[in-house]
């Protein structure tokens, strides 16, 4: 079974702060995704990647950057965090056109 881990699991920062969320998958899946989950909005795709060095824009990319450094590692960057980015963030990975495997999530609070 695919293993997707995320760190940190919880993060509190202040408005204007710099935050990096990390995701690692150990099954060599090509595709990785970053979502945010908010009550009343479900899961919304922020960015995704086909492989190391590749980045694709998702549906709600504003205020977020991402970088895929290796096949295993995908990072989400918030360079000037705002309270509207307080959310539960999920990373997922998948083989091409197949089931997505989700990590346990990171709860981010921006004060």
């Amino acid at each position, binding site marked *: 079974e695919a293993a997707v881990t995320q760190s940190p699991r919880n993060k509190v920062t202040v408005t204007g702060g710099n935050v990096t969320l990390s995701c690692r998958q150990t099954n060599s899946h090509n595709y990785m*995704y970053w979502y945010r989950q908010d009550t009343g909005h479900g899961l919304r795709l922020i960015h995704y990647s086909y492989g190391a060095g590749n980045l694709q824009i998702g549906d709600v990319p504003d205020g977020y950057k991402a970088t895929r450094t290796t096949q295993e590692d995908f990072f989400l960057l918030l360079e000037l965090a705002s309270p509207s980015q307080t959310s539960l963030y999920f990373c997922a990975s998948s083989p*091409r056109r197949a089931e997505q495997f989700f990590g*346990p*999530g990171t709860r981010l609070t921006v004060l």
Partner: protein
Amino acid sequence: QQQVRQSPQSLTVWEGETAILNCSYEDSTFNYFPWYQQFPGEGPALLISIRSVSDKKEDGRFTIFFNKREKKLSLHITDSQPGDSATYFCAARPTGANTGKLTFGHGTILRVHP
């Protein structure tokens, strides 16, 4: 514009009853519909899925009914158990998509009372 809609937002049933969760979509190019189950404190996990060439998919107590003409599908959970209490997401992917990118609904919170 919400492309995948779910109803109801929340649903409460008694143990042993059948829970029915509904999903509808706008984009006629969608041809793959997975349902994900999420327990509190965890990430979503694939529960069951269906392709648009089928009108029904069963896996134990979980059944998807699909109506392509009406662009509607539903997840039926028979003999509901308290352990089924979770949030259920309907998702969709268009044909020809190489990305695996899914569009998710807002979810239905299911509570099963013993």
